[in-house]
């Protein structure tokens, strides 16, 4: 059951991370493309958010994107164009294949591994606790009725005293 919960957590985390909403059938917009490209002025921002003042690099790259959209190219074609001209560094995030897949999966794998480790430790503790309580039950069951009655009375008196507000 706990393994299934870990698997569900891993799948939930990965799916929400990998989910992207595709606007099927709609024309390509500048922001759709620009949000997947990185401005090459060194700011490390996505193209439509470059915060360097009057960035010439951003202006030139943005003009290129707009021209390609006006020529009727789709987002994927435009991305491929920039990839061919600038290399992988122009993509705002790593691709989800090959070595780069490690970038995406490692954080979730680490969390699930941590969860697994915590589960093993806690399971050992909880198992230990239930063994302890079995031991205690054995001790109680082996007591004589008169002895058990004496302890029960004492327990009752002390609880009344405690809960009575004294």
């Amino acid at each position, binding site marked *: 059951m706990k393994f299934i919960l870990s698997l569900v957590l891993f799948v939930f985390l990965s799916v929400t991370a990998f989910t992207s909403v595709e606007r099927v059938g709609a024309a390509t917009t500048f922001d759709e493309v620009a949000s997947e490209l990185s401005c090459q002025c060194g700011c490390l921002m996505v193209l439509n958010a470059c915060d360097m003042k009057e960035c010439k690099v951003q202006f030139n790259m943005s003009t290129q994107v707009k021209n390609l959209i006006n020529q009727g190219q789709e987002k994927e074609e435009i991305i491929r164009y920039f990839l061919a001209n600038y290399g992988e560094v122009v993509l705002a995030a790593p691709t989800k294949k090959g070595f780069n897949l490690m970038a995406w999966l490692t*954080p979730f794998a680490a969390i699930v591994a941590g969860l697994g480790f915590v589960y093993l430790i806690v399971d050992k503790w909880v198992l230990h606790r239930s063994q302890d309580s079995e031991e205690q039950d054995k001790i109680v069951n082996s007591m004589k009725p008169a002895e058990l009655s004496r302890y029960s009375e004492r327990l009752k008196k002390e609880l009344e005293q405690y809960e009575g507000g004294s």
Partner: protein
Amino acid sequence: MYEIGYAALVLTLLFSIYGAGAAYYGARKGYRELIESAQNAVYAVGALTTIASSILFYALISKDYTLEYVASYVSNTQELVYLIAAFWGGNQGSLLLWAWVLGVMSVVTVWQNKEEHRDLIPYVIPVLLGIEIFFTTLMLSTSNPFARLAYPPLEGNGLNPLLLNMGMFFHPTTLYLGYVGFAIPFAFAMAALITGQLGDRWIKVTRRWTLFAWFFLTLGNLFGAQWAYVELGWGGFWAWDPVENASFMPWLTGTAFLHSVMIQERRGMLKVWNMVLIIATFSLTIFGTFLTRSGVISSVHAFGQSNLGPYFMGFLGLILIGSLSLLFFRMDDLEGDNELDSFVSRESTFLLNNLILVGAAFATFWGTVFPIISEAVRGTKITVSAPFFNQVNMPIFLVLIFIMGVCPLIGWRRASKENLIRNFLYPAAVGLLLAGGLFVVGVTEFLSILPFALSAFVLMTIGVEWFRGVNARHKLYGEGFLIALLRLVWSNKRRYGGYIVHFGVIMIAIGITGAYSLKTEKDARLNKGEQMTIGSYTLEYIGQNSYSTRSYDVKSAGFNVYQDGKLLEKLTPGKNFYPRDPNPSTEVAIRTTLKEDLYLILAGWNDDGSVDIKALINPLVVWLWIGGVVSLVGTTVAFWPDAKEKRRRVTVRNTAEDFDDSRSLQPMGS
């Protein structure tokens, strides 16, 4: 006079070396006088760093360009607030700021404990002074803030115009208070490992320091986000820049530490984990300081290329090797006093909370350094920026929000099925109802609905917890609800201060979700008198304006903002032109309401008199700032001392006076 400043740094180094050695040796041999002498060395370091800092402040305010640092970061037209802010505008000054803040905090720490914890203090001092030695050595060897110029210029370079914002005054200072603040619990943790005093005493002693550091790190991050929002002109507030990540990671592990120590205090568990967390948190503060100076990762926040990277890596290595070695040596003594009773318990949710927070810190760290790893392994440069961090961290934070809702209402040790149903049925129902309602009104994306639904769930669980407490007081003592609420909070500030912080964090989550998932943007080119619409607003371009201030020239465009035909206000986005910079800075115009921000950016103007404008609607973004303030209020409540604690401290002090001090100085290995 600047020779005095330099001499103050030299003396700081010498007193730090002396104090660290004297404290440690005095503790080993039981020489009380030597320990007191080491304490005096700490006071001297505090005074000397204050003198050095005062001299640099004087040089900056008086615009004395004989100092290279002043010539680099001050100009004749710079206003007083930015003359002061120039102190931390460059490498040398920011290192001095670290040293000064640490010096003052060390003085406060030693003074606070002049009658208590006498067994720990002799080992706290060497750790704090050891850090001081590092920063002072850097300044004296490679980054002297008092270096002179043979030919002083008549005018300085001034601060980068992007930094001429009040954020430059508040953001770095609050961040540094947060970074340096974590040195104190770290030092006490090391002292606890050295002396073998491994109970929760070191945690109780440093609880307020941890809250203090967390408060200022939160405030520093919020100031940074707000500054980015109003200054940078892209409509966002967090770009996942490596240096932003560097201040976020210790915040995450520090938050995990704040929660985890409650388990050690209450149940005597997670002792090793708490040590790991404070080591990680302090190490990440040094790592952040390293990132801004090493040049290994490019960032708009970086101080520029310097040769300090290897020194910081070496220091970081020393901290990690030293602290983890101590931890390893004491591993057997750090066994917990109790164990978990059940998977479904408050302790388990705290563990899960820690796992998620540390997981988020790891995800952020991993994304920040992955470009270096990729280049080393494949020889290919790649970029890891906002799209990666948003996609990876969002689901992690959603799980965290869920845990925030579960934890307050789940029982310690073991929660029954009845307990779970009783506590979570109504909050879950509210969350689902809100999700349904959002879908009906047109918010159909799952990843837009889910954060709001989870936020509603958490708000309800917090509300249920508060209502139960207030209702109980009302029935027991006959207090009115408002009085019962105030007394409930005042009688347990730590717990209810924490709930207020959670409340604030949910507001932040709502603000972020609204701004990111419901944003609207529109570009337009307008001639005078023309209009554009965005959302429920109509913008009418009414003309350009140009004027000069003491420091810069302004060119702006005026827009009347209408809603339902009614004029709301005039907004004037523009650009500022600075004398020594050919490129202007963008000054946005923002209209803020509780529902949304209307955000205008003047993209440019054309020869025909038209202007290019970008308009955005950022829904709910103001709740980010409100939530930040609420979180800080909650931290202040949790921080506030109470009478019970004061009585307990007096009892501990009175008991300690009867204790033979020489016996308490039992270092590791004796």
